């Protein structure tokens, strides 16, 4: 059995770097038993199961058997309640606080299944923190934009992974979507002919009117809308793609390079649920001026 340690996982550069390092060390394993030793992981942000799940799924594709060991009770509770551990031979425990948004994997053509998942996780449940209807609408739209972006740009065959967590007392809602696709750098190189560093590729993709789309359907708006919303909301948006790390928080963008590439793209949004912006337009747009 091969053993690989996994440290604490938060929403930060170090945690993404650790996950990318785990992938780098395991990606060539084939028909192995792989132990992910979590004895040092005294905290694991629940929604980051999407990123870890993507990596472990890719290991499974190489016919490896993955086992998560030495999980601290607090982390066990988080990963069992959102269903993550049930993918690795453990029982799913009831979510007694009603604060998890369950871990799921989707195929790239599962748009409708994903829509039903979001509907059931966010719309018809009483545990949702108090949010204005405008904020909830913007939040749902943002999640769908992330999913659409993953479907269109990743060219993934291995699926899209999502997970979330509510923190009602902190007024925080975390949600992460990961894919095992080609990543932004490769996509921009293939379709826009630009050879950018991984972190610069994310900068390029989040700027208005930049798109890798070819063919009859235009694009190039989803990530910009997401960025605008998060900046207005006072939340946090992080994107990891290939070896690039990009973040906007308090309307400030920062970038960095990971030591190893992530095998696809991860998008994390942290929403400030106490946001009182209305998100409703006070003046109507003249329908004759749209076109």
């Amino acid at each position, binding site marked *: 059995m091969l053993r690989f340690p996994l440290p604490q996982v938060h929403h930060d550069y170090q945690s993404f770097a650790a996950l990318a390092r785990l992938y780098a060390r395991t990606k060539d394993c084939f028909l192995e038993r792989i132990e992910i030793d979590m004895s040092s992981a005294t905290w694991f942000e629940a929604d980051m199961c999407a990123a870890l799940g993507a990596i472990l799924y890719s290991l499974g594709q190489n016919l490896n058997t993955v086992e998560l060991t030495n999980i601290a009770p607090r982390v066990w509770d988080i990963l069992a309640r959102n269903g993550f551990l049930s993918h690795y031979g453990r029982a799913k425990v009831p979510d007694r606080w009603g604060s998890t948004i369950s871990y799921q994997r989707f195929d790239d053509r599962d748009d409708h299944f994903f829509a039903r998942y979001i509907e059931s996780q966010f719309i018809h449940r009483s545990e949702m923190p108090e949010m204005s209807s405008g904020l909830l609408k913007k939040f749902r739209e943002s999640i*769908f934009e992330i999913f659409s972006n993953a479907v269109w740009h990743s060219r993934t065959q291995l699926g899209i992974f999502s997970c979330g967590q509510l923190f009602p007392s902190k007024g925080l809602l975390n949600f992460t979507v990961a894919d095992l696709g080609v990543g932004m750098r490769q996509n921009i190189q293939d379709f826009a002919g630009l050879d950018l560093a991984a972190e610069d590729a994310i900068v390029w993709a989040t700027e208005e009117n930049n*798109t890798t789309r070819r063919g009859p359907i*235009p694009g190039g708006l989803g990530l910009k*809308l997401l960025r605008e919303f998060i900046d207005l909301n006072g939340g946090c948006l992080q994107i990891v793609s290939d070896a690039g790390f990009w973040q906007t928080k308090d309307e400030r963008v920062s970038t960095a390079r990971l030591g190893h590439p992530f095998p696809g793209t991860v998008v994390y949004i942290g929403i400030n649920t106490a946001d009182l912006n209305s998100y*409703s337009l006070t003046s109507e*747009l003249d329908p004759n001026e749209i*076109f």
Partner: protein
Amino acid sequence: MKREMKISVYEVVGSPLCVASEDGQKVHDRLAAVIGAGHRAILSFHNVSTLTSAFLNAAIGQLYGPFSEEQIRCLLKVEEMAPEDAALLKRVVETAKLYFKDPQRFEQVVRETLEDEQDGA
């Protein structure tokens, strides 16, 4: 004689969640058929709760490939759309106009449309 055809987005998609590009394509195909025949299309967003740019790009944005701005302005009208959704559509439209300003893209789309029509004939 020009006719006025009403298309319900909710009816075409079958859900208030209009988020998938392939659902947008279904709406587009109906719009393109009506506008292509020189009729007026009224696109109703009654009962639609959630829209994405991906859906609107597929449904409406791609109309700016084969059709001129003038044709679309003259033959397409939207109704029962929330103001913030209309603002999103406006941005999608502006992005689409820019996208098709690239002559290479424009020629590619025209060529593909002609090929599709020849295949369908």
